[in-house]
């Protein structure tokens, strides 16, 4: 655990040293919501939820894309001698989870300011968002670890990750609709169960397969 924490801290230090990375993401969030809002002009609850997740989707892809990309080949060899692949993967997942949570809360704040906060059950949306961040950080980290091995890694991450994200996203949209109160559905526990099981499936598969894919 301590070693993982070290890795995360290193990651964060590198990220903060190059300040444009983190501010770039935040700027991306801001400008995307601004563009969407200036097109829509007003966001009723249902559209609010859809817009939120569309922006979140692209921001998260942007943020996680370069997980494995920005480091040199040499550093990975160095890491490989020092850490177990699982430690490296867990560190990356935690780091990306942090990033996604930052994006989530920033986006929520920004959209609430410019388009109002329509939630009947904000607690549910908070839980949904956290679940989504966990699931997507596992999925995106795993996919970007595959994509880094190919020639065009940026476009391939999107090509491979988007269809795989859809089952998770559909569930999240249903839960968001429950949080917003735009669905007649009274029992969100079914969706919650499905989401939980899908996330555990994704994370289990990713943890099982990553050490194997990481060797090269």
């Amino acid at each position: 655990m301590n070693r993982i924490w070290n890795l995360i801290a290193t990651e964060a230090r590198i990220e903060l040293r190059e300040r444009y990375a983190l501010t770039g993401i935040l700027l991306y969030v801001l400008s995307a919501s601004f563009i969407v809002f200036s097109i829509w002009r007003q966001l009723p609850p249902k559209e609010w939820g859809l817009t939120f997740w569309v922006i979140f989707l692209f921001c998260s892809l942007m943020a996680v894309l370069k997980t494995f990309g920005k480091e040199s080949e040499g550093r990975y060899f160095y890491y490989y001698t020092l850490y177990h692949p699982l430690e490296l993967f867990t560190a990356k997942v935690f780091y990306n989870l942090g990033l996604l949570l930052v994006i989530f809360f920033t986006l929520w704040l920004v959209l609430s300011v410019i388009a109002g906060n329509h939630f009947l059950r904000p607690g549910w949306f908070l839980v949904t968002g956290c679940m989504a961040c966990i699931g997507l950080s596992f999925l995106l980290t795993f996919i970007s670890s595959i994509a880094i091995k190919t020639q065009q890694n940026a476009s391939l991450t999107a090509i491979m990750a988007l269809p795989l994200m859809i089952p998770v996203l559909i569930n999240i949209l249903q839960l968001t609709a429950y949080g917003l109160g735009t669905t007649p559905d009274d029992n969100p526990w079914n969706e919650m169960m499905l989401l939980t099981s899908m996330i555990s499936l994704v994370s289990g598969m990713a943890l099982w397969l990553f050490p194997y894919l990481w060797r090269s």
Partner: protein
Amino acid sequence: MVVSVSLALLMLSATDRPTTFRLAVWKWGAIVLLLYVFIAGWIVPLHPGIIQVNPGTASAGDTVTLEVKGYNTSFLRDTSQLSAWLRLSGDTVLKAGHIRVFDDRQLKARFYIPAAFPFRSEAYPLTLIVVNGADGASVLPNAIFASPAVRHQPEEMSLWTQHKLQGIQVKAGIQYPFRNILAETIRNTYFHVPMWFAMILLFGVSAFYSLHYYRKGDMDLDRKSVAFIKVGLIFGLLGLLTGMIWAKNTWNAYWSWDVKQNMSAIALLIYSALMVMRSSVEDDLQKARLTAGYNMFAFVLLIPLLFIIPRMTDSLHPGSGGNPAMGGEDLDHTMRLVFYPAVVGFILLGLWISQLVYRVDKLKGNTWS
């Protein structure tokens, strides 16, 4: 079918020793089953039915003359037992007072709709049943909607139970059921559904080989798993196409953003992404390893995508939103006689083509190295 026959002919002509040409038993099985499916699937007629009734509404206390258009019917052949019925529910039926037959496909039936109903409603859906000696009973559910009478006349209540629905027999011989809206397209069941069965099985076999590759690291296993993915993708594409043609005829649009359509399109996207990913890796070992990893990952996610999510949302497609998947209503015993062989036949065909693709890949690989 055409594919399998031409493949067989190709193999026959390609071999140098035609006298020793042999096929494994299961391949002959596939050929025989698919021949049977294509012949029986196209040739067996549909049960007589009713496709149109005019007018679609009537008001109680009035006499209404219905123009009935039959499908596959032969009204003229045996007019002795000809009768027409409007059924409200159970034994609550009306018998047509007068029937005039124009030809085998058209007749007019006159009904008097009583000015009293056994229960209260805004509109009463009535099922039309036409019975004759040659066709047995042809049924059209909700053929007309009767609106309540302006003046309620309780003494007419007895008209509903005056006649008993009787003399209904099933037409002898082998035929597929006539379903409203589906009509002849019901035959697509033998081609559309087995495509998906075959696709799931092929992807499953592919994931199994990937798992083996993960354990053993033999390049041959990678070749096998990719061959199964390629063929599975083709089957999925055919399933989507047959489904779209079917949807055009029954849902009135090729693509209606139905959850089942979307999910299967996404499933195909996932596996197409796998093929794209493969083509952009140069190192063979790396390629095989990434394929194995992504393939297992994708197959595990495919299960909620195809089997859980569509069942949780409303859909036009059978098998979700409370519709029966392959319940007794849509698949009767005659259809089962063709449907199960079709499933087995198409699965065997899929395995066969995958085997050929694998062999071709292997030969190509050998020439390179």
